[in-house]
């Protein structure tokens, strides 16, 4: 499936009946070189880069639902590289560079919009911390501009600068930060992988992982057994269940994170803005909806919906930051299931003690922007059995050894603190 | 040497009224926290009765009246309001002076229930929260103790450092209820 201006025009005039599928809806074969469990953003990008960078195409991606139906289709679409700690900095920096070339690479419009991200700060101490973060971003080769109060006002004149609890002292502007159309990212990677020969198998639930003598042999699925030399678990949100099929427990608790979108309104918010009150953040989608969210509900959950007190808290934060938002009607809310690790940083690693089994998980509430680099680095690991240099610190054993804990928030490496 | 003058937690903030509801400060006198030693709750009750003539309440209940109250104050905790605790209580309970640590206010009026309904995640209507009932709960984001002391009166306690927020939250809700009633 390819798009062109002429085709869009012709189809528009003839009832849009001539569009084909973007990717092959493949039937599972009995054997592959590699099987990727999970057809979300990370699974699809891993398959794509295995094919593109490493020439490996005898691969199946097994998805229990439909492509784009998980977290990649239900997130708040933010793309940024404003991390502070070594280990995260180089990874997200690499990811942002991949984002910047993604549409050309995939020949697919993922609506990547570098509209600028502004993290507001509310005290002198926070200003110091943000100045330091900005310097780290610049050292990494990314961009950061420390704005004072008047500097923020030029960008965001509509904020309430003088509310009592979180007065706005300034903000850290990350000009290359922005948003992308989330499900288009899944479709673009899916088409790219499928075109290179990867089988994308939907409605195929993995029910077991076959391991003999410490070596992975394949998987059992709702559509029959599939043999494979290498198997990757890339199922953020359900990592614990799938790892249990291999007899492993993970340093992960699944939590629900709510997000909200209003009815479409005229263009009013040009940036992505984050606020110090309960992690509140907001941007405006291309359709005009105000997309916003806050913190986790803070209890283990797979319900894909949250509770009212957190909704109330997020709305309160929005009203505190920009009272004008009160006139917009909330259209819908949803809850995504987050793989929460104790230190808030992810895992891209081999499963120690089981040859041929790999895991990519623990993306906390930041998985979307990581989709390109996660796939890039996971593909590198699966193809070469070596960690990619920008993901070298995402090791599973860091929790046992204490070496390389990446607690970006500085709250402590403990499950209920991120 | 500087002259320090004692002020109540809500000095200068109260009383305020709106829509027939009044919020005013309570002079709570001596406040004493009583935590009975393991298995000594009954003995504490007897000692309390003998020394100050007050009854130890059940969970979620308060006993006594203005000037001398005992409020259930949490798991294994009671708050004695008013009388000085007798030294004998120390044998049965951990006794801690809490005077001046709490902002204590009372909310009076027919619509007091409606005001608190905006702030507290509890059903405080009379059929489920009668005179003599008490609860530890939240008012907005604050931890509080709420007791119905009379049919249209609630006593509300929050940490002293939160006095201004307590007054602000309740006053805002009072005005909201009043505006709704007037409309």
């Amino acid at each position, binding site marked *: 499936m390819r798009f062109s201006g002429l085709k869009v025009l012709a189809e528009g005039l003839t009832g849009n009946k001539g569009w084909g599928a973007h990717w092959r809806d493949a039937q599972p074969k009995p054997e592959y070189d590699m099987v990727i469990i999970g057809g979300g953003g990370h699974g699809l990008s891993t398959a794509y880069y295995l094919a593109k960078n490493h020439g490996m195409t005898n691969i199946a991606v097994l998805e229990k639902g439909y492509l784009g139906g998980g977290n990649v289709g239900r997130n708040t679409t933010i793309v940024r590289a404003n991390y502070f700690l070594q280990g995260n900095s180089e990874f997200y920096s690499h990811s942002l560079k991949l984002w910047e070339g993604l549409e050309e690479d995939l020949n697919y419009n993922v609506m990547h919009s570098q509209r600028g991200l502004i993290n507001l700060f509310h005290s002198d101490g926070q200003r110091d911390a943000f100045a330091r973060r900005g310097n780290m971003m610049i050292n990494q080769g990314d961009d950061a501009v420390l704005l004072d109060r008047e500097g923020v006002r030029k960008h965001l004149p509509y904020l309430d600068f003088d509310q009592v609890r979180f007065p706005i002292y300034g903000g850290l502007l990350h000009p290359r930060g922005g948003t992308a159309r989330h499900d288009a990212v899944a479709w673009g990677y899916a088409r790219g992988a499928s075109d290179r020969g990867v089988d994308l198998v939907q409605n195929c639930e993995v029910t077991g992982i076959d391991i003999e003598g410490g070596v992975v042999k394949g998987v059992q699925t709702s559509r029959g057994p599939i043999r494979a030399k290498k198997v990757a678990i890339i199922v953020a949100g359900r990592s614990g269940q799938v790892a249990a099929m291999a007899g492993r427990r993970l340093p992960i608790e699944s939590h629900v994170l709510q997000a909200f979108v209003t009815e479409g309104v005229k263009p009013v918010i040009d940036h992505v803005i984050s606020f110090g009150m309960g992690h509140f953040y907001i941007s405006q989608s291309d359709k005009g909806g105000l997309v916003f969210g806050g913190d986790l509900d803070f209890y283990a*959950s797979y319900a894909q919906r949250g509770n009212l007190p957190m909704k109330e808290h997020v709305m309160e934060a929005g009203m505190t930051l920009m009272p004008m938002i009160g006139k917009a009607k909330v259209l819908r809310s949803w809850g995504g299931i987050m793989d929460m690790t104790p230190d808030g940083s992810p895992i891209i690693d081999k499963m120690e003690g089981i040859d041929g089994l790999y895991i990519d998980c623990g993306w906390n509430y930041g998985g979307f922007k990581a989709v390109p680099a996660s796939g890039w680095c996971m593909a590198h690991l699966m193809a070469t059995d070596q960690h990619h240099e920008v993901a070298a610190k995402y090791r599973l054993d860091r929790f*046992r050894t204490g070496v390389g804990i990446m607690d970006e928030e500085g709250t402590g490496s403990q499950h209920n603190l991120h | 040497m500087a002259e320090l003058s004692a002020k109540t937690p809500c000095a200068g903030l109260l009383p305020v009224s709106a829509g027939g509801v009044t919020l005013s400060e309570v002079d709570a006198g001596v406040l004493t926290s009583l935590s009975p030693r393991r298995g000594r709750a009954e003995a504490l009750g007897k000692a309390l009765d003998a020394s100050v003539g007050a009854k130890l309440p059940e969970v979620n209940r308060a006993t006594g009246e203005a000037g001398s109250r005992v409020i259930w104050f949490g798991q294994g905790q009671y708050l004695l309001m008013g009388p000085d605790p007798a030294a004998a209580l120390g044998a049965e309970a951990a006794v801690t002076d809490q005077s001046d640590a709490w902002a204590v206010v009372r909310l009076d009026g027919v619509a007091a229930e409606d005001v608190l309904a905006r702030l507290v995640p509890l059903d405080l209507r009379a059929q489920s929260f009668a005179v003599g009932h008490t*609860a*530890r709960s939240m008012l907005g984001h604050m931890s509080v103790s709420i007791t119905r002391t009379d049919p249209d009166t609630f006593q509300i306690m929050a940490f002293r450092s939160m006095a201004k927020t307590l007054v602000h939250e309740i006053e805002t809700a009072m005005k909201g209820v009043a505006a709704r009633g007037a409309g």
Partner: protein
Amino acid sequence: MRITCPVCGERDRREFYYVGDAVALQRPDPDASDVVWDDYVHNRDNPAGVTRDLWYHEGGCGAWIVVTRNTITHEVLGTELASDVKEASA
């Protein structure tokens, strides 16, 4: 979600602070190996279904509570005082 505090009765979820999996009640021996401690501190069964976790009635009576709960439906199946659970297992 509403949780029944064994002391106060049924209360709104916002009065409670979530601590995490009730593994905290089976703390390993201080001299246990790093593998045992790593497993205790970090690794979780993380079930999709019935789970037991530890909550603190922070905005209420201050009790520590073991909540048996379904992570898929948010149904609360039972609550016990953590001290009772600990004593029963001692």
